[in-house]
């Protein structure tokens, strides 16, 4: 018995050590830059103005460590842009520090939540009570954001959430919680806005077919899509939930075929089932007017790798894409800085964290003090125009009740020659949309 216990214990330990080893590698190159920065500043200005401490709670270790490092890099870059002078059309970029607070600099303190809601709350509490942070940003995982923002709500500290998309978060009626990213409901609505705009261009569909995997995520997406279809006046010709682990989907595809091909297919799938469906579509020669996917499986790297050319012409929602830089030069400028420091391009997560940090600093500056109530008021008055953010949004403005950014929006990308190209909103498109989805025999 003891031997067994010991063996199992050693296995568990090995697991812990392995989990730990994943993180330090990406973190290492990032560390030197921010470490030197504050030291240099202090040396230049001995009579340094007061510092404004902001806590950032992210999954810096554990299974999500790689994402956590992206997020940490993004808020560090944003902080550098705020604290120093840069010729960029972003809030607070052209001045050093926060002008309304006598040029005070932002100092970041990080908390690691390991994707655990309890640890997220613990970190929020620690940052507020022992590090005396003025405000908090974070925390990526919706579940952790939920508990960490509860602590901030209790303590009366502003909490800005740049990247969690669970609808519930802004339905809690919190006073101190603000969210800049669009959330799942908005993304579903985007599909119908897109279809309406296509119709205005003369590309009509007779209705929509909804195909979703049947666990919580797919079911929720389908429910929202059904609601919006009704609201926007699109007939739902088929509504097919399926088992994501199915090894054969020809009967589902036959049903879709029978429902007519003159429709837009709205699909929510994970990666292996998305691939299986594509193969079955080809085999049974099913080509609806458009296939519009709720990201997930369709934006996983395996999708294009496995399907090659057969992956082309799929449309999918996204939060951000690097090719947006072609229509928004500010994205290229920021991404170049990011790439130079951290060696990778920005992605949807880092772009949103970066934007969240700037939004928070902008509000603190307008508040002109570190008084939480003044910052809360300033956040409510936030009005950042579209050209001052690196996101494909119409701007940043919070709903006075829910504190959700009402100007947020997703984008729709299309796979063309194996690459994801932004095709909607049309004014941000980097490529012309291919419409309708070509017949399999004609490609």
């Amino acid at each position, binding site marked *: *018995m*003891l031997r*067994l*216990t*010991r063996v*199992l*214990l*050693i296995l*568990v*330990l090995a697991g*812990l*050590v392995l*989990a*730990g*080893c*994943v*993180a*330090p*590698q*990406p*973190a*290492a190159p990032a*560390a030197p830059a921010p470490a030197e920065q504050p030291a240099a500043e202090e040396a230049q200005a001995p009579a340094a103005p007061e510092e404004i401490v902001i806590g950032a709670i992210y999954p*810096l*270790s*554990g299974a999500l*460590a790689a994402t956590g*490092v992206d997020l940490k890099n993004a808020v560090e870059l944003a902080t550098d842009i705020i604290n120093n002078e840069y010729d960029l059309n972003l809030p607070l970029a052209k001045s050093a520090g926060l002008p309304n607070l006598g040029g005070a600099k932002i100092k970041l*303190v*990080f*908390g*690691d939540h*390991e994707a*655990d*809601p*309890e*640890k997220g*709350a*613990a970190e929020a*509490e*620690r940052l507020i*009570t*022992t590090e005396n942070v003025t405000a908090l940003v974070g925390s990526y995982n*919706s*579940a952790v954001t*939920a*508990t960490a923002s*509860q602590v901030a*709500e*209790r303590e009366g500290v502003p909490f800005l959430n740049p990247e969690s998309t*669970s609808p*519930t978060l802004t339905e*809690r009626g919190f006073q101190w919680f603000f969210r800049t990213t669009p959330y799942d409901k908005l993304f579903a609505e985007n599909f119908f806005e897109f279809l309406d705009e296509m119709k205005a261009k003369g590309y009509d569909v007779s209705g929509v077919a909804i195909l979703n995997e049947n*666990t*919580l*995520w797919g*079911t929720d997406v389908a429910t929202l899509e059904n609601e919006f279809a009704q609201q926007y006046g699109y007939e739902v010709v088929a509504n097919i939930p399926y088992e994501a682990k199915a090894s054969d989907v020809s009967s589902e595809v036959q049903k879709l075929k029978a429902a007519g091909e003159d429709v837009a297919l709205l699909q929510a799938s994970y990666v292996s089932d998305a691939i299986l469906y594509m193969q079955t579509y080809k085999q049974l020669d099913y080509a609806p007017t458009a296939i519009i996917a709720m990201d997930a499986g369709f934006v996983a790297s395996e999708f294009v790798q496995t399907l090659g050319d057969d992956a082309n012409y799929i449309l999918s929602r996204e939060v951000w894409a690097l090719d947006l830089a072609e229509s928004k030069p500010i994205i290229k400028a920021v991404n170049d800085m990011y790439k130079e420091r951290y060696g990778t391009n920005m992605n949807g997560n880092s772009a949103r964290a970066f934007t969240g940090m700037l939004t928070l600093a902008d509000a603190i500056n307008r508040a002109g003090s570190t008084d939480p109530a003044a910052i809360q008021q300033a956040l409510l008055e936030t009005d950042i125009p579209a050209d001052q953010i690196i996101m494909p949004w119409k701007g940043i403005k919070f709903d006075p009740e829910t504190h959700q950014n009402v100007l947020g929006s997703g984008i729709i990308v299309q796979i063309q020659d194996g690459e994801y190209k932004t095709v909607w909103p049309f004014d941000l498109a980097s490529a012309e949309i291919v419409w309708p989805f070509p017949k399999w025999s004609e490609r």
Partner: protein
Amino acid sequence: MQRIRWQLLVLVLVVLLLLAFPFYVAQPFLQRTMILVVMWSVLGLAWNILGGYAGQVSFGHAIFFGLGAYTSTYLFTEWGISPWLGMFVGAGVAVLVSIVIGWPSFRLVGHYFAIATIAAGEIFAVIFRNWKAVGGAVGIYLPIIRGDRLIDYQFQEFKAGYYYIILAMLALIVLVTYRLERTRMGYYLKAIREDSEAARSLGINITRYKLYAMMISAAFTAIVGTFYAQFVLYISPNTVFALAISIQMALVAILGGTGTLLGPIIGAAVLIPMAEYTRVYLAGRAGGLHLVVYGLLIMLISVYQPAGLMGIYREWQHKRAARGMVNDSLPVATAEGGADDAVA
């Protein structure tokens, strides 16, 4: 006689120090860490009843933890039933489920029992992830109730409220374990652990006593599950039915010393602050380094003293005894004596 009086004095002192803790340590992060230490002590002791005394290593205790959390939370958010009541309903549900799981899986011995419990734990996680009525993968948010009244089982300003609740649970499980060590059932469990065939030949109904141990263990785990839900105010299948919870429970008990009263408490007192402080001081700077340090420390202890921290303590006592400085031993080392009593 002299020694007993000395022990009583230490006990009273420790109890007083524990009770006064929130008054001399005001810092919220330290208070929170202390709450976690006590919480994991209770969980470790609960695991210890089945895994330590009865020797049935379980890696599925998150089932009971999750059931406790979900039962009280569901009853509260849907029907407005007080979590105080829900806590005991949750314990009842956990006991029932422990019978359903225990009955078939106690036929399995050693490794196979441990594997079966891991599988059972995963099954529950999957069920709750897909069960829409209880929030599916999203989980359940508990409403924040201000006012810090004991009846609400929620404390927003007066953190110490949580501390005293969990401390009371610790007192209860310490008493239960202490009694267990000295009753017939405790001896039966130890006999089963040492040699189940021999125990059976002496007329002990092994399955029944293993089940009893599992039921007590499940009930306490579920009660702490409710506490966790009220403390964190958000539960989801990925957090309360997580394999990580089952492992941590076992880890606390094994590292401290299984089959002892103080072991799991010492284990929690060492492990939890270690995890919290390595995270706080290392995580922001060096990614996952704190997990490496944490893992290494656990490895060192388990390699050099497989009997856990209690083993180190006992070894030290033996050395002192050998030098003639102490002439009797603490009541914790009763395994051998216990087997004799079971025969009688």
